[in-house]
């Protein structure tokens, strides 16, 4: 990954394993196919991120 960052010039952001991402997408995408979906508040989004342990500055919405 370090080589890729050097080649692309991107700063290092957040790194997640596939299992961690799988844990995130469950609540992240819950309900989004429903005809009742009307979006999600910033507070609820933050709670989802907090709930899977994504609490660093990269994951802050404010």
């Amino acid at each position, binding site marked *: *990954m370090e*080589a*890729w*960052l050097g080649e692309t010039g*991107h*700063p*290092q*952001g*957040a*790194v*997640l*394993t*596939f*299992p961690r*991402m*799988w844990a*995130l*997408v*469950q609540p*992240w*995408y*819950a309900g*989004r*196919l*429903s*005809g009742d*979906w*009307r*979006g999600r508040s910033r507070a609820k989004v933050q709670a989802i*991120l907090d709930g899977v342990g994504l609490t660093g*500055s*990269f*994951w*802050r*919405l*404010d």
Partner: protein
Amino acid sequence: MSGEGPTERDWAVRTSIYESFATTGRAPAIGALAARHGVTEHSVQGSLERLFEAHEIAPLPGGGGVWMANPFSSVPTDFVVETTEMSCWANCAWDALGVPAIIGGDARIRMHCAQSGDPLELAVEAGALKGDEGVIHLVTPIRDAWVDIGFT
């Protein structure tokens, strides 16, 4: 920017977009959305604009229809997901895992490592993720995700 949130018609259009992706793997055409909802194509374009402002979907540049309805992409990407019902493209690695999450059921996911170009294959079987190991690197902080959703 209208400054208004999506209308109930807009949300209904969104539902149709997601239904199309979930069942066929493809976005519905503007004309099909207009016919389904009994409105003009111009009206559908307005819905897409308001849904984009609400960060619900991303339209194709130039008004050609839907580009993204996360986790789905209307254009080919490196992130291919096959479910029992359809095959689709996801926008990124996050969204590639998001397809079986949003639909439920089993899936096979294929992508390539951005560094080495090596193929990566994952599967979801009975709710469990299986397959190649690796990491997902995210460049854009979450608060800025929709500043340039295509880059994100």
